């Protein structure tokens, strides 16, 4: 691409202002995901009686779409980004509400809306859009006197939280809570409150242990592997061990054919078996790089809204990667969460692209005072 710095078209301006390093890192992650989709999904597809390349076609067909979505969103001006986030937030809030009446039940939870061609998990889109909306509310509170941003943010958070718990989608509720709380923390929440709310959060986890049997079962199995079926996690650990330093080679993995969810939640184990420790470490470095480089740039940011929004989106992205990798490595109880841009999963991929698109848009270098949102 040859674009001069004086090019003032939308694309030209975008090229010189967007964070190309983050873009490159995300591209690498997605590329690795595409390769892994070819390695991991045929085994799963065969096992459940589909054409071996069923998931490959779907995922690779979706990937350009997702990247296009990310790039398109990153072209938007901060103001338009904010409005888009608000629209998506309200839209997905309504759709999440609809899942209770029109949702498709998969594996015991009503999280999906059937759109004919594919089914959509609207709560995935709730996450990034809510991060941006909350950031704006926190920022407004601190910019405009008398604007009750914090209160509105708290109310919206409670609504979203209630909807997610009712689905029930405890993992999603946890991520949304963590992101929202981190944003509130960044926005200057007093330390006393930080500690108190942190305590409430831990208590909440304790409550979910007693209220949701599947949560309790997973935590029990984590704490005491002998208490139940740990087949999945054992198989995942065997996959890493089997892969060793350099891996067995692409397509040479064997445990993927017996590992449940090898294409989605446990794709990291397939990466470990086929591409080895070095590739996995590379993936960890890429995720770390995306989060920390984003943070580093935000340290130069003087606009609180931009800072909170981008930080929220990056935290969400990083947290999801952390949770996925940690549960695959048996550092935490298994939690069904996709590895961003790597796992199979349409809604998740599109929602993450949307989120990172907004992060890119809001973190573009603004010369001078920048646009006031």
């Amino acid at each position, binding site marked *: 691409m040859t674009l001069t710095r004086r090019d003032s078209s939308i694309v030209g301006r975008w090229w010189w202002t967007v964070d190309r390093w983050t873009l490159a890192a995300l591209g690498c992650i997605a590329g690795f995901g595409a390769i892994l989709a070819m390695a991991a999904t045929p085994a799963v597809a065969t096992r459940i009686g589909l054409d071996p390349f069923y998931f490959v076609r779907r995922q690779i067909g979706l990937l350009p779409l997702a990247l296009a979505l990310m790039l398109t969103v990153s072209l938007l001006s901060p103001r338009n980004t904010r409005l888009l986030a608000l629209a998506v937030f309200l839209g997905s809030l309504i759709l999440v509400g609809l899942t209770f009446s029109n949702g498709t039940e998969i594996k015991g939870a009503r999280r999906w809306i059937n759109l004919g061609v594919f089914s959509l998990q609207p709560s995935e889109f709730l996450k990034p859009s809510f991060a941006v909306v909350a950031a704006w509310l926190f920022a407004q509170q601190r910019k405009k006197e008398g604007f009750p941003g914090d209160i509105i943010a708290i109310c919206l958070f409670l609504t979203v939280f209630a909807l997610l718990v009712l689905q029930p989608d405890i993992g999603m509720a946890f991520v949304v809570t963590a992101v929202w709380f981190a944003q509130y923390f960044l926005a*200057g929440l007093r330390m006393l409150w930080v500690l108190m709310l942190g305590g409430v959060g831990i208590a909440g986890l304790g409550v979910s242990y007693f209220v949701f049997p599947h949560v309790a079962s997973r935590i029990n199995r984590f704490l005491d592997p002998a208490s139940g079926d740990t087949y999945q996690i054992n198989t995942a650990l065997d996959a890493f061990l089997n892969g060793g330093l350099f891996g067995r080679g692409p397509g040479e993995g064997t445990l993927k054919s017996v590992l449940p969810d090898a294409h989605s939640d446990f794709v990291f184990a397939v990466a470990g078996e086929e591409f080895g420790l070095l590739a996995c470490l590379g993936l960890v470095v890429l995720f770390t790089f995306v989060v920390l480089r984003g943070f580093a740039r935000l340290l130069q940011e003087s606009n609180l809204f931009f800072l909170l929004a981008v930080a929220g989106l990056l935290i969400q992205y990083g947290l999801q990667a952390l949770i996925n990798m940690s549960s695959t490595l048996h550092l935490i109880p298994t939690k069904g969460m996709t590895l961003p841009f790597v796992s199979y999963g349409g809604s998740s991929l599109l929602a993450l692209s949307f989120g990172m698109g907004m992060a890119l848009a809001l973190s573009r270098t603004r010369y001078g005072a920048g646009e006031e949102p």
Partner: protein
Amino acid sequence: MATRLGDVLRALPAKLRLEGEAKLAIEIAHHRLAVTGVLFLLAFSVVALRLVDVTVLKEGHEPRLAHLPRAAGLDIERADIVDRNGELLATSLSTASLYANPKMVSDPADAAAKLVRAIPGLEAKEIAARLGSDRSFVWIKRNLTPRQQYAVNRLGIPGLFFQPEERRVYPHGSLVAHIVGYTGIDNHGLAGIEQSMEERLRSSNEPLQLSIDIRFQHIVREELARAVEEFQAIGGAGIVLDVATGEVLALVSLPDFDPNSPGTAEGDARFNRVSLGTYEMGSIFKIFTAAVALDSGTVTLRDGYDATQPIKISRFTISDFHPQRRFLTVPEIFMHSSNIGAAKMAVDVGTQRQREFLGRVGLLRPASIELPEVGAPLVPSPWREINTMTIAFGHGISVSPMQVATATAAVIDGGVMRPSTILKRADGAPVPSQRVVSARTSEQMRRLMRLVVERGTGKPASVPGYLVGGKTGTAEKIVNGRYAKNARISSFVGAFPMNAPRFVILTMLDEPKGSKATFGFATGGWVAAPAVGRLVARLAPIAGIGLVDENAPELREQMFINAAVR
């Protein structure tokens, strides 16, 4: 410090203150963002360290992979059937069946030509038509041999697929045909144990153990086949029953068939003469006539009846086959098989008591063995005195040989009835039993049956040293509504050793013809009794029954019977 700065700011004018607060907020945000970043760095580092830990630091440990349960063991759809000693009677083999998706076959004619060469016995035209049809699934051939499967694979024709299947195999072939039965192409039982025990065979992988002893079965079949051939009978039946438990040790119906390919069975080969066929059994019924008469006290062994004249009742005449034309004692009636005597004995017992007794020994209801092929007896209704008289010598009532063997065992084994079974009873398990006659009557019946073999119509069944006893039976078959002179059911039910019976053996020939050796006779004594004799001689050593001296004083005393009262 932040709060103090806040106090200072609050003192400033509103506009300025707001900007100042925003600046402060940004500053706090930057600090806290740095903290968050460090936390993220730590978390990602932990993940990286853990990765190194599980991937390379675990080296030296055996991977858990080795401890994973292997693919579940051979999981067959249908349990094996074994005999009482564990000998395999029926098992399942994994095979492959060939089917095609015609929509994926590009050149049906060519494919058919190749297939016919690979699998002999296929019709090229027929296969081409199937492959060219507009369906998406057609069977080509079920249960290929591994060689055929390899040959088909080598052809490399797209659109052909293998369906793993199971095929039922009967290693003993026709020897146990009427017991195990057979299965259809979809592995469902269609006859015998395969049909009656369908649920059990499908629900458990544990082999199903039968009461049959394959050694007994083989000997019975061999001797029965010899008799069938010698006397040119159209069929035969043979049973060996364990008296103490009611277990069937051998069950043979001839002609038989190969259960591996039941479709090739000819004529009535699939008809089970032992349990499904019901026949007028003739004089064998005198066992039951004598038993009920002795048990109810209407006669004693010292009493007798006048048998000089045939009985004329309405339009029937009851006469004797071996007429003695004199007064006969009860032992003589039994020994010479006098119909006149038996009829008179039954009249004294009475219709009511006769029917009740026959019911008690299971002759009025289907046999209890666990085969689907069980025939219901044909009993007279109404049961008049004439019926009582004919039933006394086994006419006018049709029962299966299985029922007769079971009832005989009850009469001679201390008078206790045990339902017969074809499934092995667990060792030491209590056997259901019900008293049908007194022990004294049973003991007298043993003496009577011993007498028949020692001195009466059953002499050919005698085997020195084994104390064989029994009763002959010959009945004319009803052909076109009339008793036919030359179509008989000739049978013999025996037991040994008669002082303490272990086995009941029954042989029956369907329409035997007399031979030179039998002087043209084809009665039970001439054709069925010798077979029982040969069976005793061959089975006793296997069962571990030793020879005894029949003339030893205590045995003579046990078997003594005063036949003649003159």
